[in-house]
């Protein structure tokens, strides 16, 4: 017999032990703070002019749920494939991951979702209110007009869009060059809007007469025809310069244009000037961009400027054109050197004044101007005298009978595709509120639909959708539990080099592969949303987090309110609140 057998029974062993469940002890009674699942707003989402729920889009994409990701995008933006290409992605500037290593390549993921939706014909379901019998006339099939039609249709209106050009798209088709935005992409996403039942009537130029005549047939008008009239420089010989927008338009229509090599000057510093310069480089023309302020003051998006320089565009900053003269087959552009004399307080750009008397001459074969544009006709602006005009961030609402809304570049402070979409959305919400609750209700109603603390609006919130009650509190980098993340480089889409492209106007940047999307979306913190990582349940010392049918719930009978779940949530999708 072993010692154990001899002694075991004699050794007293009185310990805390029971065969009844410890569930009798409702430790929840000790609690004075309680955790809750509390989704918040990601900074990318608040920075997106279209107010897309980006953290959720990234999460769904990381799980391969592309149809659901598409639906989340389409709640707020009808153009993922377009915006994935041409948006200046303020979301990425706001991305919390910048505090850790590099921001998420949100545009690349959006583009992938947009392209996959088209290529695989992904199905989606979007909430749509029943037909309310009201008809809306939309002038201009550019991004703001198409967006207005898209959102109004979902709110139960029927929309006719009138377009002067031969095909819809506006700046998307006629302004942005094909190497950035191919026709097929525009066609596919415009088709999605047509599929909703929106009628697009091309080759129909709206005029004052047209509008007067249409007033009887429509309940409201949205004017989103953009700026048709290029600004003038008011210098001698200006008529010898070519219009940049016209040039871009011709490039789209005729696919290419033969220019003798040689040198061209492009005057301006906006996105159109950059598009003109990059197009010229593709035609084999040595291109000099002339801008009166400094390079960093250019209104063009920084990435576009950098790419233009990489592609060979020379930039002459702090030069203002003072005259153009012809000399044989060439032009002499006389330039006045400028210097900084201070800063503009409203724009943050340098204020410039002439620097001395000595001018410079630039001898070139062609001169293009792209210094901005303005409305081509007076009816394209909201009447200042009308007392019933409400000026919103992205549109002006004129409460005539019938009401007129002005949007897109006509009203937007930032001329971008994303802001045009924001304008269409804001107009749709404002008009719907007007019809349902009157003019005075518009501001409050729109304020209740802000993403975070604005300025972006959420159509999902307007429609009281599933995620409409998310908290406006924004997740900051400090709120992220970075112990759960490892540094990983931002994925870059492959970019074709200019001289290796088959056709110089082929699209230059490629779409992410699935593998790249997987890697990039896994980098996302998913700020403020639950991605079912299960940390709350794993770490709970009381086993007080129940998981049923994929839903987590705090069992308040046992939760002591220790707060470990909240601290261990990597992405700040929980909160502690005091017991009342």
């Amino acid at each position: 017999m072993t010692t154990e057998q001899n002694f075991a029974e004699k050794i007293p062993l009185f310990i805390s032990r029971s065969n009844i469940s410890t569930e009798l002890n409702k430790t929840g009674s000790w609690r004075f703070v309680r955790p809750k699942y509390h989704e918040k707003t990601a900074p990318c989402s608040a920075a997106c002019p279209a107010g897309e729920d980006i953290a959720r889009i990234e999460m769904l994409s990381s799980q391969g749920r592309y149809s659901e990701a598409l639906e989340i995008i389409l709640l707020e933006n009808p153009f993922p494939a377009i915006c994935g290409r041409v948006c200046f992605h303020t979301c990425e500037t706001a991305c919390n991951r910048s505090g850790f290593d590099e921001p998420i390549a949100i545009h690349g993921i959006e583009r992938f979702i947009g392209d996959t939706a088209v290529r695989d014909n992904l199905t989606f379901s979007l909430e749509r209110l029943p037909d309310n019998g009201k008809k809306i006339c939309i002038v201009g099939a550019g991004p703001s007009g198409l967006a207005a039609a898209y959102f109004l249709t979902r709110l139960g209106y029927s929309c006719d869009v009138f377009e002067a050009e031969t095909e819809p798209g506006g700046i998307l088709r006629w302004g942005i060059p094909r190497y950035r935005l191919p026709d097929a992409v525009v066609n596919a996403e415009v088709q999605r809007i047509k599929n909703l039942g929106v009628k697009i009537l091309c080759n129909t130029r709206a005029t004052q007469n047209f509008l007067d005549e249409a007033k009887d047939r429509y309940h409201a008008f949205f004017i989103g025809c953009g700026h048709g009239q290029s600004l003038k420089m008011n210098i001698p010989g200006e008529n010898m310069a070519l219009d940049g927008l016209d040039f871009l338009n011709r490039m789209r229509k005729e696919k290419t244009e033969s220019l003798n090599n040689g040198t061209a000057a492009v005057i301006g510093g906006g996105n159109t000037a950059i598009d003109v310069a990059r197009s010229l480089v593709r035609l084999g023309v040595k291109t000099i961009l002339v801008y009166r302020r400094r390079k960093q003051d250019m209104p063009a998006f920084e990435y576009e400027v950098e790419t233009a320089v990489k592609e060979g565009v020379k930039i002459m900053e702090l030069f203002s054109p003072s005259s153009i003269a012809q000399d044989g087959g060439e032009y002499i552009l006389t330039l006045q050197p400028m210097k900084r004399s201070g800063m503009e307080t409203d724009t943050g750009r340098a204020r410039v004044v002439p620097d001395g008397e000595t001018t410079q001459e630039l001898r070139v074969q062609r001169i293009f101007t792209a210094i901005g544009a303005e409305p081509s006709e007076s009816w394209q602006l909201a009447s200042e005298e009308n007392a019933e005009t409400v000026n919103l961030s992205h549109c002006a609402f004129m409460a005539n009978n019938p009401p007129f809304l002005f949007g897109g570049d006509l009203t937007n402070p930032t001329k971008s595709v994303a802001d045009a979409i924001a304008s269409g959305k804001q107009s749709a919400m404002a008009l719907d509120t007007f019809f349902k609750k009157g003019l005075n209700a518009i501001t409050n109603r729109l304020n209740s639909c802000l993403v975070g603390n604005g300025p972006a609006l959420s159509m999902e919130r307007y429609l009281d959708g599933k995620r409409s009650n998310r908290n406006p509190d924004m997740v900051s980098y400090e709120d992220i539990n970075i112990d759960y993340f490892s540094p990983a480089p931002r994925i870059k889409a492959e970019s074709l080099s200019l001289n290796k492209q088959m056709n110089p106007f082929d699209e230059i940047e490629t779409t992410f592969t699935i593998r790249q999307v997987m890697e990039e979306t896994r980098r996302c913190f998913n700020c403020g949303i639950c991605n079912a990582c299960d940390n709350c349940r794993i770490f709970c010392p009381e086993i007080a987090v129940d998981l049923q049918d994929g839903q987590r719930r705090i069992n308040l009978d046992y939760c002591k309110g220790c707060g470990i779940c909240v601290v261990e949530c990597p992405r700040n999708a929980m909160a502690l609140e005091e017991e009342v």
Partner: protein
Amino acid sequence: MKKVLEGSHAVSEAVRLAKVQVMSAYPITPQTHIVEALSEYCSDGTMNARFLLVESEHSAMAAVIGASSGGARTFTATSSQGLALMHELLHWASAARLPIIMAEVNRALAPGWNIWMDQTDSLAQRDTGWIQLYCEDGQDVFDTTLQAYRLAETINLPVMVVLDAFFLSHTFEPVDVPDQDLVDRFLPPFSPRIELKTSDPFALGQMAPPTVYMEMRHNIQMAMEQVPDIFSRVEQEFAAIFGRSYGPMERVHCDDAQVIMVVTGTAASTCRKVISDLRSQGEKVGMLKLRMFRPFPTDLIREHLGSVQKVAVVDRNFSFGASGIFAQEIRAALCNRNGHPPVFGYITGLGGRDVTPEILAEIYWKTKNSAHPENESVWVGLNE
């Protein structure tokens, strides 16, 4: 088979042969060699065991508490700061009555940083309910570790096997490492009295209100009181198989001694030589080596020290504001016995300082030549 092993690996070999199932530890000098060898045994398949990697000693103890509650034979090892970090869970392990074995390499506590021999770390844990056994050499370490499993699993209390930093942990000596079948005869597979199983769930360690807590603590003491009896039976069985036994204490030349020096750990080896030299000079000196510190063998202390003329206790530790800890315990054991001898307390060998034959001889002569202790503690060998 005799092998030349360092003290650390004497522990590892015993743990291997004990067929421990779950181990967890966090590295700390001078303990690291012990678990280094064991983690290799786990990864190369020599042992069929799990080695749980953890981020601290606190977690290491928590891990073996969990494994032991599940009925596994467990092991951990630590030293100094690591042991201090475990403190909370040392109470848990004993009050949960789990037979966990821990090798504890005596090392000084910081600051200033000191990785060398000092007993204050383990003695500071004397009230945690662990059995403590202090070892003298490599064979003692090996044998004590095996005995610890038998003792712990019988009594349902954890055992700390304590060895001196470097003097023992890093010193190579011949150690008889027996074959597995012999060890199996001495140490059969663990049949736990507490075994959490998912198939038979129950709750452990829950609320103990005032109506039962005191009884639970009394229960631990009742178990402790049975340790001397059970330990002697364990040693008898060990001796029957391996031919060696040690007892809770060892007495050398004590029968006619007028001064008995109380020593622990490797200092006992030095003391044997000093005693032998002093005896050859005609001095009536004896040595009592304490092996078991918890439970404290009060009866044996009274029996063997109660009627000697003088007791000299060598402490390589100190309880600040009081005295050497072994001296305190011996005074406490003797104080209720009429006519007990004066107990001279000596502090020496802290933080790795050598306890030389000269120091031990000095302690003897001081004791012999003083009628009464000049102080509760006399610090020997302090630099001016």
